[in-house]
C-alpha cells in the first residue's frame, strides 16, 4: 500500500517482499521535469500480484553464462517484479555446477575449468536474488538431458547397444541399477542443502527411449516389472523414485509436463510445468483437473525470436483461458518466461530477453483486465528507457 502525499510518502507492506515491490513501483512514479527536478505526483496505490509464481528460466548449460550476466538479469527481473529464477543449470551439453560430493561432474562435464559455478558463485546468486525478493529454483533435469553427467560419473547413464554389443554411446540415466539411486540420493542431499528454496525442479522432459530399448538389462527389467513394452512406465518408475528421494529431504518438486502426461505417481505438492505449445490450454485443464498445481510456460518461450513486436503476443496470453472450474483455475499459480540457451550467451542475453519478458511480467502481476495493447506500448517504452 503506497500513499504519496506531502510531506511524507508512506509505503506499507505486511512483509519485506511487498516492500520491495512497492519500492520498485515508487521508483517508477518518480519523473524528471524539463529543468532536471525530480517529481512525484500525489498517489494512492493498493497493489498485489495476480499470480504468486512469476519466473524467468535461464539455461546455463547450452551456453555458460558468467556470474555477471546472471546478476544483471536478476536486477532486470526485479524491475519487472519477477520473483522466481528457474535456473536450468545443467543439461546434455555441459555440467557447470561444481558439486561438493561429486567434483568430477563439473571437472569432466563443464565446457572448461573456468566455465563453472563454484559453491561461492551459487551462494552469490542465491543471496543477490534473495535481496530482490527472488526465489532460486534449480533444475537438475533427469533422466533425459543428462549427457554431460556421464562424463564425470561412470555407470550413471544407460549404455546403448547395437547388434548385441555396447555401441559406445549413452542414453538417459539408467533406471535399473541401484547405484543410480544411491548416487541420486547423495546428489540431491547436496542440492537440498545448497539451494534453500522449498522447491527443486527435477526435469523429466523429452526422454528418448531408443537407448533403453536397445539395452538388454533394461529389457530384462521391463519384463520383470511387467511393464511389457511401455517405456513410459519405466520412466515413471524412475521419476517416482526421484520424487521420493527429494521428498525425503523435505523439498517440494517441480516437473515438466511429460512426467504428468506419462502418468507417474506425483506427490500432492508436485508442481507441473506446462511447456508444449500445442494445445496447452487442454493440458492446463488436465493437470489442474487431476488436482495438481501448474505453472505455464508454453506460450512464453522467448528464445523463439521473430521479426517485429512479438511482445504483443506474449502480452495477449490469458493464462486462465482454459476449460475448468474455479477451483481448478486456482491451481494455476503462475508462469515462466523461458530463454533456452542454444543461441544465447552473455553477448546477446540482455537485449534478447528484455524488454520482451516485461510483457510476461505484467501479465503475471497485473489484473486480468489490464490488456490494452496501445496503453501497454506507451508504458513499455517508458519502462524500457528506465531499465536502460
Amino acid at each position: 500500500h503506497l500513499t504519496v502525499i506531502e510531506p511524507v510518502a508512506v509505503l506499507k507492506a505486511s512483509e519485506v517482499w511487498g516492500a520491495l515491490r512497492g519500492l520498485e513501483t515508487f521508483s517508477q512514479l518518480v519523473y524528471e521535469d524539463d529543468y532536471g527536478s525530480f517529481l512525484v505526483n500525489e498517489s494512492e496505490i493498493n497493489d498485489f500480484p495476480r499470480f504468486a509464481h512469476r519466473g524467468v528460466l535461464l539455461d546455463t548449460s547450452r551456453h555458460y553464462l558468467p556470474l555477471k550476466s546472471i546478476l544483471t538479469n536478476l536486477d532486470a527481473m526485479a524491475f519487472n517484479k519477477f520473483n522466481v529464477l528457474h535456473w536450468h543449470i545443467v543439461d546434455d551439453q555441459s555440467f557447470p555446477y561444481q558439486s561438493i560430493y561429486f567434483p568430477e561432474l563439473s571437472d569432466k562435464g563443464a565446457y572448461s575449468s573456468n566455465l563453472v559455478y563454484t559453491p561461492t558463485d551459487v551462494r552469490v546468486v542465491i543471496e543477490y536474488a534473495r535481496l530482490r525478493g527472488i526465489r532460486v529454483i534449480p533444475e537438475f533435469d533427469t533422466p533425459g538431458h543428462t549427457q554431460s553427467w556421464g562424463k564425470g560419473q561412470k555407470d550413471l547413464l544407460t549404455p546403448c547397444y547395437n547388434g548385441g554389443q555396447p555401441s559406445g554411446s549413452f542414453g538417459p540415466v539408467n533406471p535399473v541399477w541401484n547405484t543410480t539411486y544411491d548416487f541420486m540420493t547423495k546428489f540431491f542431499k547436496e542440492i537440498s542443502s545448497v539451494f534453500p528454496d522449498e522447491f527443486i525442479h527435477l526435469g523429466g522432459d523429452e526422454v528418448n527411449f531408443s537407448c533403453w530399448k536397445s539395452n538388454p538389462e533394461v529389457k530384462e527389467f521391463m519384463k520383470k516389472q511387467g511393464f511389457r513394452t511401455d517405456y513410459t512406465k519405466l520412466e515413471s518408475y524412475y521419476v517416482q523414485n526421484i520424487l521420493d528421494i527429494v521428498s525425503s529431504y523435505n523439498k517440494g518438486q517441480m516437473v515438466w509436463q511429460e512426467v504428468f502426461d506419462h502418468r507417474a505417481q506425483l506427490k500432492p505438492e508436485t508442481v507441473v510445468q506446462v511447456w508444449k505449445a500445442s494445445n496447452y490450454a487442454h493440458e492446463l485443464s488436465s493437470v489442474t483437473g487431476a488436482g495438481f498445481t501448474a505453472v505455464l510456460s508454453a506460450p512464453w518461450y522467448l528464445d523463439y525470436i521473430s521479426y517485429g513486436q512479438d511482445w504483443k503476443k506474449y502480452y495477449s496470453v490469458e493464462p486462465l483461458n482454459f476449460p475448468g472450474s474455479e477451483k481448478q483455475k486456482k491451481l494455476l499459480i503462475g508462469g515462466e518466461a523461458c530463454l533456452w540457451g542454444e543461441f544465447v550467451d552473455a553477448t546477446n542475453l540482455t537485449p534478447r530477453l528484455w524488454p520482451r519478458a516485461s510483457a510476461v511480467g505484467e501479465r503475471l502481476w497485473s489484473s486480468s483486465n489490464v490488456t490494452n495493447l496501445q496503453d501497454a506500448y506507451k508504458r513499455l517504452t517508458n519502462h524500457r528507457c528506465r531499465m536502460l
Partner: protein
Amino acid sequence: AENEPSWEKPCAELLVYVSTPGCNEFPSLDSKESYKLSVSKGSMLLWAETVWGALRGLETFSQLIGRDENGTYYINETEIVDFPRFPHRGLLLDTSRHYLPLRAILETLDVMAYNKFNVFHWHIVDDPSFPYESSTFPELSRKGAFNAMTHVYTAGDVRAVIEYARLRGIRVIAEFDTPGHTLSWGPGAPGLLTPCYVATVPSGIYGPINPIFNSTYQFVTSLFQEVSTVFPDFFLHLGGDEVDFTCWRSNPEIRAFMVEMGFGDDYKKLESFYIQRLLDIVSSLGKGYIVWQEVFDNDVKLRPDTIIHVWKENAMQYLKEMANVTRAGYRALLSAPWYLNRISYGQDWIEAYKVEPLYFEGVPEQKALVIGGEACMWGEYVDVTNLTPRLW
C-alpha cells in the same frame, strides 16, 4: 614425435610491400584489394598493389595466428593469393529509425573491417528523424532530429566516421532518400513536402517531397551541393523507394500539374519527373548515383552508369529483377536476401550464406554488371542496445 609441430626460429616481422604507395586517398569502387601472403621459415611477406589490398592482407594475417597451450603465438607456413569476387561489399545502417551514437558506428566499422566489408551505406535520414546537421539548412536537424542536442551527427561526427572508415579501406556512401521517406525534412523546410488534402481542405498531414515547385529544386540543389562536398565518395545513394502516391493524388495543385504535363493519371510519371531532375542536379555536381530498384522499375531515364539497388524480396523474385536490371545494361547491387533486420529463430546465417548473387538467367556480360551487395540492418527495432549482437 611425428605429429608434433616443428618449431622454427621465432618470426619477428611481417614485411609489407605495397607497389602503389599512398595513404592519403579515399578508397573507391575501382580500388584493387588483392594481396599475396607468404609465410615461410625465413620470412613473412605481404605484398599488395595498393594500401587497400595490404589492409585486407593484414586482416587475413591476423586470422592465421594461433596460440598453443603454453601461450606461444605461432603461424603455419602459408601461401595465399587472395582477391575479392565482388568490389562492392557493403553494410547498411539506419540512423533515422533509431539514432546510433558515434561509438556504435565506429564499432561497426571495426567489425566490418574484420569481415573485409568495404562500403558503409549510411542511411542517415528518413521519416522518423533527421539527425544530419546541415550547415546550409541547420533547421533540418534542429526541427527534425529526435533531439537536436543529443541525437545529431555534427560535421565533426561525420568527418570522424569518414576518416575512421577510410583508415579501414571502407567507403562511406551517404543516402539522402527522396522523394518518399522524408517526413522528418518537413518541420525544418516548410513548403518542401506535399500537403495532403481531404476533399478540398489540407488535412494537416504531409506526404512526399512536392515535385511541382521550383523552390523544391532550389532546395535540393543546395542540399546536395553540401552533401557532395561533405561526403568524398564518388557515389551518393539517392533513395527513390516506396513513394506513396495517395498524398500527391489528393493535392489539387499537383492534380493540376499532372494535367498540364499530360501525365494523365500515371503518378509514376510525376515521380520520374522529380527523380530525373534530381539525377541531373547530382550529376552536375560531379557525383555518380545509386538508387533503389523502384526508380528502374518505374522507367525513369537513367544515366548509363547508374547503379540499381535490388531490395524487394518475394519468393526469389529478386533474381528476375537482377536479370532485368543487368539486361538493361545497368550495374546492380543485391540486398534483397540480406535484410538482416528480419530476425528469425535459429541459424539463419545459413540462408544468407547460401545466396548465389549470379544465380539468374543472363549472359556473362550481364553477370559482370553485378558489382556486389549489401547486408541491411534497418533500424525499426534496432538501437545501440542490440545492434552488435543482431548484426554479427
